[in-house]
Structure formats: C-alpha cells, structure tokens
C-alpha cells in the first residue's frame, strides 16, 4: 500500500510540474534564445544595422521574397486588405505576401510572443496606443531610412503620428481618426437633444434625464468600459491640465483629488442612468454594434472612435446617424480632443526583407490601394486617397463626418505611457470599479494614484 502511495504521489507531482511548466513559462525559453540581440536592437541603432543586412540580402529584385503581413479587423477590412495584397503580387510576381489576419482579441499578446522569439511578421498593424511602447522596445524598423514614400502625407500629421519624437518615421498611420460620438439622430430629434451644439460635461445629466423621461427603455449613452475610460478619464486630464495623465518624462500629472472628481462624475453617469448599466454592457466588450439595444435604436449615442462609425451605423441601416460634438470642460486648459490615427502599420526591426516590406507599404498607401481599401481603416491618411475614395463613393459619409468633427478640436495626443497597456489596465479597472459601485470615487482615486506611482517607479 505504501509503495502504491509513493508511486501515486510521484506521478501526481510529475503531472503538476509538467502542467505548470507548460502553462507557466512557455514563452520563456523561446525568448531566451533571442534576448541578447533584442537587447541590442534599440531604436536608432537597430534600423541602420537591419538595413545594411537587408542590402546584402536583397540585391536581386527578381529574387523570390516572402513577406508576412498581419493585421486585425472585421470582414470588410480583411477582404479589402487581401485584395490589395493580390494587386501588389500581380505587379511583383517575385513577392509573396502571406496574410495573417484575425480579430483584435489576443492580437497584441501574440505580437509580444513573436517579438520575444524573433518571429514577428515583416509588416504588422499596431494599436495606436501601443506605438510608443513598441518604438521604445526597439521592434520597429526606421522607415525613413528605409526609403518610405511620404510625399502624399501632411508633414505635421506624420510628425504627430508614428515618429514618437524621434524625427524619423517608425510607423505609418493608417488613416485619420479621433474620438467620436455616433448619434442616433432619429431618437435624438424625438427627445429634443441637439448634439451638433457645443456643450459641457454636465449637459449629459440633463440630456440623460430627458431620455429616461421619454422612454424608460432608452439611455443617452452606450458606453463600454474600454472606450469610456479613454473618453472620460484621459480626456478629463487633457482638458483639466493640458497634459496627459503620465507624460513622456514619467511625471504623474493628475492628482488624487482630480481623479476623485473625475470618478465622481463617472459614478453620477451610472447613478442617474445616463449610461446603460455597466453589468448589462460588460458581456459585449467593446463591440457596441452587437448590443441588441443599439441595434434596436435605444441609445441616443455611442461612445467610440471614428473608425467604428461604419460598423455602428451598419448595425441598423434604417436609422439616421450623425457625428456628435464632444464635451468640453468649462475653463479647461485645453479642449482635449485631438485627431490622430486609428492604427499604425510598421515593419519589424528584424525583418529580413525591409526594402520589399517598405515597397509594399508604398503601394499600400498609393492611389491603387486607396480605391480598394476605402474607409476600412477610417478616413485615409492622405488627401489623394481621400479624393479617390470620395470620387469612387467608397468614403463612408459618417466616418468622414466624424473625422471632420474631431478635427475641429485642438487638443494634443496623450500617446505614450498613458496609452500603454499597463496604465490603460489600471484606468480601466478604476472605471469598472466605480461604474459597478464596488469602489467609491475616493477609494478608486486613492488606489489609482497608488498604482500609477508604482508603475512610474518601476519604469523610470
């Protein structure tokens, strides 16, 4: 019996260990093979080195080259991007582009493992907020030195989007975008709400009450935690202080009192039923267009981005939509709202074929691709592409309108540590705790400041 027990114990221990080693550290050994070169691959130095290597490897233009291109998105984006790849391959028979596309779930995490193992695709789409983080980690190729064609771009727009303060282009913006309030104009008109006027944050409470009085099944705002965190907390700091929550020098610019004021505002949005209940919205994640109440036209407005205008309006084509103005703070240091890009596209610093990858990007941002892509990544980033789309009728009018609305504001982007994954998670947790009522605004403010200071201490 004793022997049996010992054998059983040993087998159990083995299973525990094997299960854990499989789960706990699968990325670690892969990463370890690669860590030394990755450490050396630091932004400025990385690009010329990679370029020199590339020069030696791509001397013959007819040499067969295989590139990998990954992006996330919906069906429309997938189909259009595949068509662009097809068109490029017809012009360059020696180049094969392997598409790797998916939804956004797990996309960034997958990139992390690919960076760690040195197996990231040659060309990849990047979430705007993560651009500065990727640049810091040295995984982006210097596109300027690689010869990217920026002649159709506005120089200021590029400087603000994809250079990360370096003076060189490390990522290309895929379009023009900004925060958007997509308004169900039919319901807004019926209730008597005018989102085309300029208003302040407190106006939401008055409008929220009007909507509830009009119909108990309706709410003023459809606010998912992810988008609403950026819409309220980050904009609050930009408007109040004229600065991001954490700036590039790793200073925390929002005080505990300011956080508490902001969280009190969020709590009121839920207590006074301006927003649909957080528990109702949670299962839909950031896919507001899947919420049956949005499809049924029971929200006046959805908090989101210009790039989501087309999917939100497609959810119910019988409703008339418009892009609403964005709230301002009385006496704020800045109007806070800014126009940036919905995503970036970059080339991997360790790509074996950066020249070909950049050549593909030049095609991707050229006129032929513009007519294929339309507004699958928001309004195109160049005037030439916008004109082509407008002429061919592929420019979604609501997307264009929402970009125009966001461009009337003069705030500055808070891209950097504030939009990094860890800080975003801290802010999102705070928003969720307040919206669910599991923390008071004061408690949430105290914890948020503590966690942000902790983040700053470990990243300085």
């Amino acid at each position, binding site marked *: 019996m004793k022997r049996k027990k010992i054998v059983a114990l040993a087998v159990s221990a083995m299973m525990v260990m094997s299960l*854990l080693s499989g*789960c*706990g*550290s699968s990325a670690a050994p892969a990463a370890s093979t690669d860590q030394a070169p990755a450490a050396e691959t630091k932004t400025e130095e990385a690009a010329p080195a990679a370029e020199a290597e590339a020069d030696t490897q791509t001397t013959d233009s007819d040499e067969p080259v295989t590139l990998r291109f990954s992006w996330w998105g919906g069906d429309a984006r997938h189909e259009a991007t595949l068509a662009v790849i097809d068109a490029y391959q017809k012009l360059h028979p020696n180049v094969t582009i392997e598409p790797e596309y998916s939804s956004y779930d797990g996309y960034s995490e997958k990139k992390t493992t690919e*960076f760690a193992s040195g197996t990231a695709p040659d060309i990849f789409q990047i979430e705007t907020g993560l651009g500065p983080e990727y640049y810091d980690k040295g995984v982006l190729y210097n596109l300027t030195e690689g010869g990217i064609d920026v002649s159709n771009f506005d120089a200021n727009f590029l400087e603000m989007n994809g250079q990360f303060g370096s003076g060189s282009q490390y990522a290309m913006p895929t379009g023009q975008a900004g925060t958007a309030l997509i308004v169900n104009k039919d319901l807004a008109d019926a209730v008597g709400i005018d989102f085309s006027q300029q208003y302040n944050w407190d106006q939401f409470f008055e409008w929220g009450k009007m909507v509830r009085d009009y119909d108990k099944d309706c709410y003023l705002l459809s606010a998912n935690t992810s988008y609403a965190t950026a819409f309220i907390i980050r904009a609050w700091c930009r408007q109040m202080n004229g600065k991001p929550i954490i700036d590039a020098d790793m200073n925390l610019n929002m005080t505990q009192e300011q956080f508490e004021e902001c969280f009190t505002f969020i709590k009121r949005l839920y207590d006074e039923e301006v927003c649909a209940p957080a528990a109702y919205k949670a299962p839909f994640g950031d896919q507001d267009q899947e919420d*049956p109440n949005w499809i049924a036209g029971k929200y006046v407005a959805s908090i989101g981005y210009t790039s989501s205008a087309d999917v939100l309006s497609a959810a119910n084509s019988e409703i008339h939509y418009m892009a609403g103005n964005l709230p301002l703070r009385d006496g704020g240091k800045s109007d806070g709202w800014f126009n940036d890009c919905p995503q970036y596209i970059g080339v991997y610093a360790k790509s074996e074929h950066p020249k070909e990858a950049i050549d593909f990007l030049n095609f991707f941002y050229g006129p032929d691709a513009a007519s294929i892509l339309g507004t699958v990544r928001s309004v195109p980033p160049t005037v030439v592409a916008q004109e082509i789309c407008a002429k061919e009728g592929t420019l979604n009018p609501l997307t264009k309108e929402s970009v125009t609305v966001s461009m009337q504001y003069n705030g500055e982007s808070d891209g950097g540590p504030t939009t990094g*994954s860890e800080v975003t998670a801290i802010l999102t947790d705070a928003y969720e705790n307040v919206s669910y009522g599991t923390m008071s605004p004061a408690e949430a403010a105290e914890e948020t400041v503590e966690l942000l200071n902790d983040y700053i201490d470990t990243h300085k």
Partner: protein
Amino acid sequence: MKKKKLRSRDNQAYLYLLPWIIGMLVLQIYPFITSFYYSLTKYNALEAPTFLGLDNYIRLFTRDKEFFKSLSATILYSVYTVPCKIIMSLFIALLLNKSRKGIGVLRTIYYLPSLFGGSIAVSILWKIMFMDDGMINAILHKLGMETVSFLGNPATALPTLSALEVWQFGSSMVMFLAALKQVPQSLYEAAQIDGAGPVKSFFKITIPQISPIIFFCIIMQTINALQNFTSAFVVTQGGPVKSTYMLGLKLYNDGFLFMKMGYASATSWVIFMLVLVFTLVLFGTSRFWVFYGDDES
C-alpha cells in the same frame, strides 16, 4: 545468456522511451527550471533579464492587491467546481452503471462534452448561451422568470464559468463507471442479506470500494481548476470587476500584455506551490478515507 537478452530488451525499452524523455527534458524540465530563474529577474522578453532576487515574490505578496483578488477567485472557482464535478460525474456514472438497452449510446452522449475539452469553441458557445439575450435567459423569460445578467454581474460570473467546467464531467464519469464495474457483486448480496438498504450499501460499500478513483479524480480536478485559463480568458476576460480574474489569466496578462515575464514567472511558481500544497494536503488526508484493496488495515 538470459541476462544479456534481458539487458538488450531494457535498452530497447529505453529507446522507445527516448522521444518522450527528450520531449520531457526540452519542453518541460528546461522551461520549468528557466522559469524559476526568470522569476528572480526583471525580464521583458526583449532585453536581457536583470537579477532582482526575491523582489518579484515580495511584491506579489506585499504590494500586488490584484494577486490576492486572483488567488481568491481561483480558490473559489476550485471550491465550486471540484465537488460539483465529482458528485455530478459519480451520480451519472451510477445511473449508467446498469445493463439496459441503448445504455452505450447514453454513455457516449454524456461523455461528449468532455471530448471538446476546455476549447475556445465551447467557451464561446457558453458565452453566447449566457449572454443577457442568450438561450438561458430566453428560457427563463419563457418560464416567466426574471432574467439574470450571468456574465455582467460579479456575483454570478464565477458560478457561470464553474458550470462550464462541471458540464465537462465525462472523463471522471468514465473512470467512475469503470470503478463501479470492479466492485464485487457479492459484497452487495452479503449486505442485502444483512439487511442493508441501497443508501447504506452505497455509503458503506460503493464509496469505500471506489475511493482510490475518487481520490485520483479530486487530485486531477483540483489541479485543473487551479490552472483555469481558457474560459476566464474567452468568456469574461477576467471581469466583471476582476471577479473571474484567475491566477492563470493574471499570469498571462502580466507576461504577454504587460511584458513582465519575470513577474509572470514568479506567479507561475506561486501557482505551482499552491497546487503542490493542495495535493500534499489531499494525500495527507487520504489515509483516513481512501481504501486500497491490498490495505491490511
């Protein structure tokens, strides 16, 4: 001559085992050891690790409030799932331990959910079923009952995920079924002669006779539950308000989202120790209730 033949057969056996041994060394032992090293470092997977000593562990236990939320969610999940799954699988096994027409088909049907394992597809299906406008709420509504925000409410999200795990009771059920078949019929006959009813027979004969299998299932299910990741990741993303933020998911986010591989490795070692402690405690208690056939006592 005989000895030589035996040695040659031994070598053959080792040769057959070699692929497994290599796999074990490269894919399990090596990551296991390196993860411990990384747990003592600051490591973002792109730059060389910096040695920190026990800082990651100290931070986990003294400064990381999220860790205790995750720990409590994980333990609660295990408490919900393990007993329910064992009772459910034993109950179904008892029902299927009969010789009736079509019993094979029924056994296959009950085993089916386990074939899907902890797959992404099943988790997505679960999510759709338990959404506010999903099938379960539609049924509740038809029955004239209040609908429930299963995935949006922190109080119901964890039990909903636990139900997914319990639903996949097939593998335990098959083991119980096999164990029940091994219980000598003569014991029941003797008990019947002595006047024992079915309930008494169940607790005095069936349970002790299949106790090694119960013990094995408890150990395996506990290990599984403490390592949950897929359902928490797919169905709830750890929410709402971290109510389903299991340690496995925290480890994943720390490592792959925040690129804190050293810290994530430390968390994985804490999970390992946790599983080990639970397993040892269970082994410690086994001598009081597990009956082995060759046990003289």
